[in-house]
């Protein structure tokens, strides 16, 4: 019979989760609690468990729950006995269906394409939400430190974040606590190398007493990853000689990627320190550079909390892309710059050796091509527990798709064609002839790949400069009118008598194209017709920001075995990800979707003609329906087959 330390029987509910250290059970009659039953092997390994739990239960930190009842720390509230043997503990139950492990939020690929069961609510998160997460993380650490506890194993799986960016710390039973009565310290014996402070690398963690400053190293690393697209501060491009040293060696020297010292430079495609304000930069420097050899210099959780709160108070969205959030004082949008860098980043040339003799191995682009003496990877000790795998029970094997070995390479996508383009001179509408630029000259539109360039020139007297905002492109597609925003605007002239500019638009939609400089004053003018060789083109009417503006089905091939192959593409903003039908969440007109190919797209996938930011995938699946519906961002699109 199970009893609790405070007295009384414990009745269990169903099992909730199972981890390396123990199993979680619901508690009958107490939906706010959960019971962690520590594995017997674990109890045998560490005889100090009962004493540790007794101390933790007797001395919880102030602020385990915040003022609104949110659980900040999953702290043991009572220990549990089986007879007279301590076998586990009770702690506050967190609603894990509404939370996600920190790494799923800090890693952009996880936010954009969450796994089934992952945080779908984070798809729309911007830097604003991430910054709030960082603030809340610092606040949680502050609560821990204020009570003299040291987290120790401060890793990305022990931090849970909910939809409102509130943070909870779990696995509290492995934290370092001290018995205030006897002074006995219960050490934290685990940790992850990437979050371990330099002074603890190589230390005998079972016996060394950790300082809060070691947590502060990990806190700085976590905040860096949250704010900088998941990048670890000691990852980056090595400009020194030889191979890039391992993270912990760089940490010991304090050579972080955005720091002033050392040959490590930030990785491509990630915003640099222009994304944050000077006070926050200073904190990183104290934590990671000064703090390398002087842990006492690392900023406290309270300092991080204050500085990040101040940063979060003065943000703005970029004009080009409202999902780009950055401090008001930033001169230009660091996210736009990062996206540009990412789409320009060309990986080193390397032909995949499909049916060819092996390609010669090229020299790596950015690093000195010295003969690699591979740096040592620290590998965990293998445990005989793997013998258990041989006796693992039945595993549900998913049905496998048929072999695809004999399919030939699909041919290139043909570029769109422009017809009917010519230079036009358009008079203003009658009532505006005298008060406004009275003539508008539209140069002959030109098409290069998927880019359509339109130049206009407006002259006349007028009272105020209307700017270029009124320049619009409208496409008459088979599904209706679509307003296409420009990719690029190059002003040529902008004064009281003369306004001229060159605009570049994506020409991914087939149809008649109309242009207007200012639709109040000028009529719409036909500038040409674009044909896109494709089976179907569907504008993304929902137009959720950040998703491709249209979807094109280039090719549809019936394959043997009742399968279909679709060559699908989407034109959109760089950096988007889309969720095509997944294995577990088919959103199709037919319910029986099996082994659907699952693709996520990133902004730098293969390019169509003319270097346009274009996404493309070839999907093969057993399918008989007449339409193909899928999820992209938060909008759903249907392509008729």
């Amino acid at each position, binding site marked *: 019979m199970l009893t609790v330390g405070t007295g009384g029987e414990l009745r269990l509910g169903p099992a909730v989760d199972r981890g390396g250290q123990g199993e979680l059970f619901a508690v009958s009659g107490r939906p706010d609690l959960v019971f962690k039953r520590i594995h017997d092997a674990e109890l045998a390994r560490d005889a100090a468990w009962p004493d540790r739990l007794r101390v933790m239960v007797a001395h919880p930190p102030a602020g385990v729950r915040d003022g609104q009842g949110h659980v900040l720390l999953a702290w043991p509230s009572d220990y549990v006995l089986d007879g007279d043997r301590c076998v586990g503990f009770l702690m506050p139950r967190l609603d894990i269906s509404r939370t996600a492990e920190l790494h799923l939020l800090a890693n952009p690929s996880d936010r954009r394409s969450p796994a089934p069961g992952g945080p779908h609510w984070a798809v729309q998160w911007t830097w604003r939400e991430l910054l709030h997460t960082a603030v809340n993380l610092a606040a949680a650490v502050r609560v821990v430190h204020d009570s003299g506890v040291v987290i120790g194993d401060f890793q990305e799986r022990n931090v849970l974040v909910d939809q409102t960016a509130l943070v909870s710390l779990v696995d509290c039973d492995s934290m370092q606590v001290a018995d205030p009565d006897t002074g006995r310290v219960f050490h934290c014996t685990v940790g992850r190398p990437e979050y371990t402070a330099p002074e603890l690398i190589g230390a005998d963690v079972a016996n060394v007493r950790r300082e809060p400053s070691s947590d502060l190293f990990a806190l700085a690393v976590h905040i860096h990853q949250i704010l900088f697209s998941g990048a670890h501060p000691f990852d980056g491009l090595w400009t020194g000689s030889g191979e890039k040293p391992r993270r912990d060696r760089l940490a010991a020297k304090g050579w972080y990627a955005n720091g002033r010292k050392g040959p490590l430079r930030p990785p491509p495609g990630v915003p640099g320190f222009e994304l944050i304000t000077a006070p926050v930069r200073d904190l990183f420097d104290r934590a990671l550079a000064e703090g390398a050899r002087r842990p006492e210099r690392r900023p406290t959780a309270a300092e991080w909390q204050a500085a990040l709160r101040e940063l979060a108070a003065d943000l703005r969205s970029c004009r080009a892309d409202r999902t780009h959030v950055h401090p008001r004082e930033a001169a230009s949008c660091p996210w736009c710059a990062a996206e540009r860098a990412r789409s320009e980043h060309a990986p080193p040339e390397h032909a995949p050796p499909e049916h060819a003799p092996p390609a010669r191995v090229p020299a*790596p682009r950015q690093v000195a091509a010295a003969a690699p003496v*591979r740096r040592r990877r620290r*590998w965990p000790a293998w445990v005989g527990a793997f013998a258990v795998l041989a006796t693992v029970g039945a*595993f549900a094997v998913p049905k496998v798709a048929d072999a695809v070995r004999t399919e030939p390479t699909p041919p290139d996508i043909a570029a769109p064609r422009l017809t009917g383009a010519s230079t036009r001179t358009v008079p203003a509408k009658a009532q505006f002839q005298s008060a406004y630029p009275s003539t508008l000259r539209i140069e002959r539109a030109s098409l290069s790949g998927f880019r359509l360039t339109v130049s206009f020139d407006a002259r006349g007297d007028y009272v105020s400069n209307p700017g270029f905002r009124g320049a619009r492109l409208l496409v008459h597609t088979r599904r209706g009118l679509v307003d296409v925003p420009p990719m690029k605007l190059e002003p040529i002239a902008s004064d009281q008598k003369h306004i001229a500019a060159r605009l570049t638009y994506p020409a991914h939609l087939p149809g008649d194209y109309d242009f207007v400089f200012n639709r109040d004053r000028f009529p719409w003018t036909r500038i040409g017709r674009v044909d896109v060789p494709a089976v179907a083109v569907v504008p993304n009417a929902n137009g959720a920001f950040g998703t491709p503006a249209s979807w094109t089905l280039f090719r549809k091939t019936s394959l043997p075995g009742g399968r279909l192959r679709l060559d699908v593409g989407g034109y959109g903003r760089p950096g988007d990800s889309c969720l095509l039908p997944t294995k577990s969440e088919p959103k199709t007109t037919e319910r029986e979707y099996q082994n659907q190919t699952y693709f996520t797209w990133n902004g730098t996938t293969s*390019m169509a003609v003319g270097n346009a930011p274009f996404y493309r995938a070839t999907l093969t699946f057993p399918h008989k329906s007449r339409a193909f519906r899928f999820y992209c961002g938060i909008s759903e699109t249907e392509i008729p087959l």
Partner: protein
Amino acid sequence: MTAPFTPRLKLDNRDPRVACVLLLDVSLSMGGAPIDELNRGYARFCGELGEDPLARKRTEVAVVTFGGEVRVAQPFAEARELEPQRFSVSGTTPLGEALDTAMDLVEGRKAEYRAAGLEYYRPWLFVLSDGSPTDGERFENAVRRLSEMERAKGATVFAVGIGEAADMTQLARLSERGPARLRGLQFGPMFAWLSASMQQVSNSVAFGPESDTTQIPLPPVGWGTA
């Protein structure tokens, strides 16, 4: 020029990577029960790896099959994008060419990691064969190259022989680590061990005092004999 869609290195995933190349023997002798069990095991491998929250985005898997011809059946893809496939048998055993192809894949991927500023763990080469290599001198050269790579700590190599006809002597030349012999057709447990190994790397939980020795996995228990 557009190519069929191959998942490229995902730059918006900044997690450290571990690249794992599976070299699978699909020569004629694998026909029947062996290839069926292999296919089942591979499907299990993809499924399990895709479920671990860290391994699914940190493990990158490539598959090179060798049977008559050498084919990159799966170019490097993150475990969460792996689609199980059925391999079919044909031909003899060009293991040398397969090894060359696998080493090229590994070198190429490492270069991509470095150019992207990503951290990576030492890649794995996992070789499964039920016979003798049939490409003579090509195999000899490949073994030399592989030994160099292993010596320079460029990869961790694991070789497994399938069935009675497996040439353990030749497989023993692939790694300093002795080859294992698969017990019967226990591909399932073997692939489960491999995915658990990848999960271990991704989760790198335990760590201790820095040491100079390479961590060597214990001899595979349950599914093989060392």
